[in-house]
């Protein structure tokens, strides 16, 4: 599995990220780092506790990482959630979060598969 096919699997734009960061090694490093990021957990727990402000920041961070890594699909859903939370959160939050969760899962699966493949 190449990094490019990993990107394809998660609905992300490999050419775009490569054109900005200019090195496959760099992209790979940060893609793998994405797995260690705790923002999604923070987002879920903050929403569960009704802490909109913290949830907004967590969603915002996810959105920012996605922008940097050109994770197009997850970026789209996290942006929608971020904007809703920025305005204080509406009744759409639950549905928006479900979409983020689905995209996040798909992303993490693709990266994990890429990381764990035999040499």
């Amino acid at each position, binding site marked *: 599995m190449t990094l490019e096919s990993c990107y394809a699997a998660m609905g992300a734009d490999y050419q775009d990220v490569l054109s*900005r*960061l*200019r090195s496959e090694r*760099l992209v790979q*490093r*940060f893609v793998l*780092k*994405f797995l260690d*990021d705790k*923002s999604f957990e923070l987002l879920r727990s903050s929403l569960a506790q009704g802490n909109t402000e*913290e949830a907004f*920041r967590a969603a*915002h*961070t996810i*959105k*920012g*990482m996605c*922008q*940097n*890594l*050109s994770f197009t699909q997850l970026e789209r859903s996290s942006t929608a959630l971020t904007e809703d939370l920025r305005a204080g959160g509406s009744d759409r939050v639950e549905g928006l979060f479900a979409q983020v969760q689905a995209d996040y899962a798909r992303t993490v699966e693709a990266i994990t598969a890429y990381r764990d493949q035999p040499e």
Partner: protein
Amino acid sequence: MPAGRGINTQQEKILIVDDSEMNRSILADMLAEDYEIVEMEDGVAAVSYLRGHVMELSLVLLDIVMPRLDGFGVLEAMQQNHWIDDVPVVIISAENGSNQVERAYALGATDFIPRPFDALIVRRRVVNTLLLYAKQKRLISMVEEQVYEKERHSDLMIDILSHVMEFRNGESGLHILHVRTLTDLLLSYLMEKTDRYHLTMADIALISTASALHDIGKMAIDEKILNKPGRLTDEEFAIMKTHSTVGADMLSNLPVGRDDPIVKVAYEITRWHHERWDGRGYPDGLQGDAIPISAQVVSLADVYDALTSERVYKPPFSHEEAVAMICRGECGAFNPLLIQCLTENAEQLRTALTRDASETIKRTKLRGISEETLRGEGGGVSKRTLRLLDRERMRNSFFASMSQTIQFEYTRSPSMVSLSTWGAQRFNLDEIIMNPFTDRRILELVGRDSLEEIIQKMAATTPEAPELRIDCPLHYDGMARWHRVILRSLWSDDEIPQIEGALGTVMDIHDTQMHLMELEHKADRDTLTGLLNRASARKRMEMRMGDSPESHYALAEIDIDDFKIINDVYGHMFGDQVLQQMARSITGSVRSSDICCRAGGEEFFIFLEYRTDIERTIDRIFKSLCFTYKGRRVTVSMGVALGEDTGLDFDAMYHAADSALYAAKRGGKCQYQFYKPDMAGLLEDRRDGSVHHSQHTH
């Protein structure tokens, strides 16, 4: 100069503030190659780091949305603490709504980098911002250095003068320092109070410095009168009073510097510091504002300090007593405005004098004001003052940039060179360089040949002739510019003096040097054709023959046939064009190392070095010099002399070539002749006038 990439400058430090570890890493990765990176994960951490390290930082990259304290909060803190004046902030954020950007700019952000990051954009913006600030910082420190240096010199002069005066006048050496401090303060208060005297900060500095000279005339007064403990007789007092005119004469009779502003001000002070506001003073009985303001202020400062100091004939009065006596008019008559300045600021004046008067706080004051100016806010300083200060700053930087002079000092043991701050920055060097003669950066700057010349010439200096001067190109910032290096060696006091080191200056003379070289080039050349003229061609030929006398040389003298006809029939303009075309044909037919010359009129010559078969070469050259120009056939006659026939002597070769040329003309023109000994008589015939050859003119 690429910011932060210079080999010699230490790496610039960038603070990255972002709550996302990934964002920080991406940025750090993009920049780590060229900069030192510090990372902070939120606004609070950033502010606490800034508190201790702001002066080390070159740039802050700041995220907006962060927990605890967001980017705007950090910007506000930076503004409150004035850190934003020293460190530029570039905002990085996905928040590109225009009011967010606007708010960040309003809070002092310098630039904005949008997310997602593009490595090229990030690097370029960082470099741009650093460049901008580096330039500003350089300018500030340059101006400060210049002004400080100037002050240090004048302070030193005043110290020396005070001590001399102390010896002579039996006054406390502090008197001159006190007068200076008082003058400075009184003038500052006066400037706040009124615009009447059009005082600038520069004027105040000038007047207070010149105030040190107010009693210089006392040097000429007999010591017996000067230090007489009792009361002076009328006659003695009359002599004493001459010190003001004597002092003024000393200044106006100076052989140099009479027109210098400081000498003019010193003249006013020296001559008129005993005038009175009511016109009853001496020597000229000036009244009111007919007395220059400089003299008025020094007069008051002088009286005040005399009252509060101990003298052979009186104990010191307290500050309050002195002020009261002056106000009651017991010690002279003064400008009421100045009296106001004195009474209204009595407390500050007293503190200023009780402090060690020589310890002025000019430098901090200067820095403070320049910061205020840069921030563009008035604070306690009026707009007018700022404008004046601005002008002073401009003047200083102008003079600094005009003089282009850089000072340095060399010590032999330990072997090191210290450069002025500005000089170090100019040449991208450290201020202190150990073992300069083997230092790679010095070698790159000066070049091996020049460096060796300097070492050699320095070794040849003596205590009697310690100066040496070298013009050489210096290489920095990717260019080579001509500089003049002047060194003065310093010698030990030993019986056999040893060089201990040297003082030096470096001056940029590039433009002058280029101009000179251009003039030299012009002086060497014929203006119409650009070929060498006769004198310079001769010089070069002689040099060539002297350098390698074993080579074979030929001199070909060329004369355009019937040039007079060309000129007469087609006009001088056409004639000139033919000459220019001939010059092109000549240079086109020889190697660039050959010497081509227009000797005058339509006469040219070529000096060439050859190995074998000079006949073929000459034949080829001759053919290329006969051409058709704009329908007109142009031909030449040519006489050739070989060095082996005539000897390597310019006159001999030229004479022989001339004879051969004459033979060619006589043979019917449009041909060439090699010199043969039997031609020697030809020229003499011509000179006798027995043979006329109208075309062969000079």
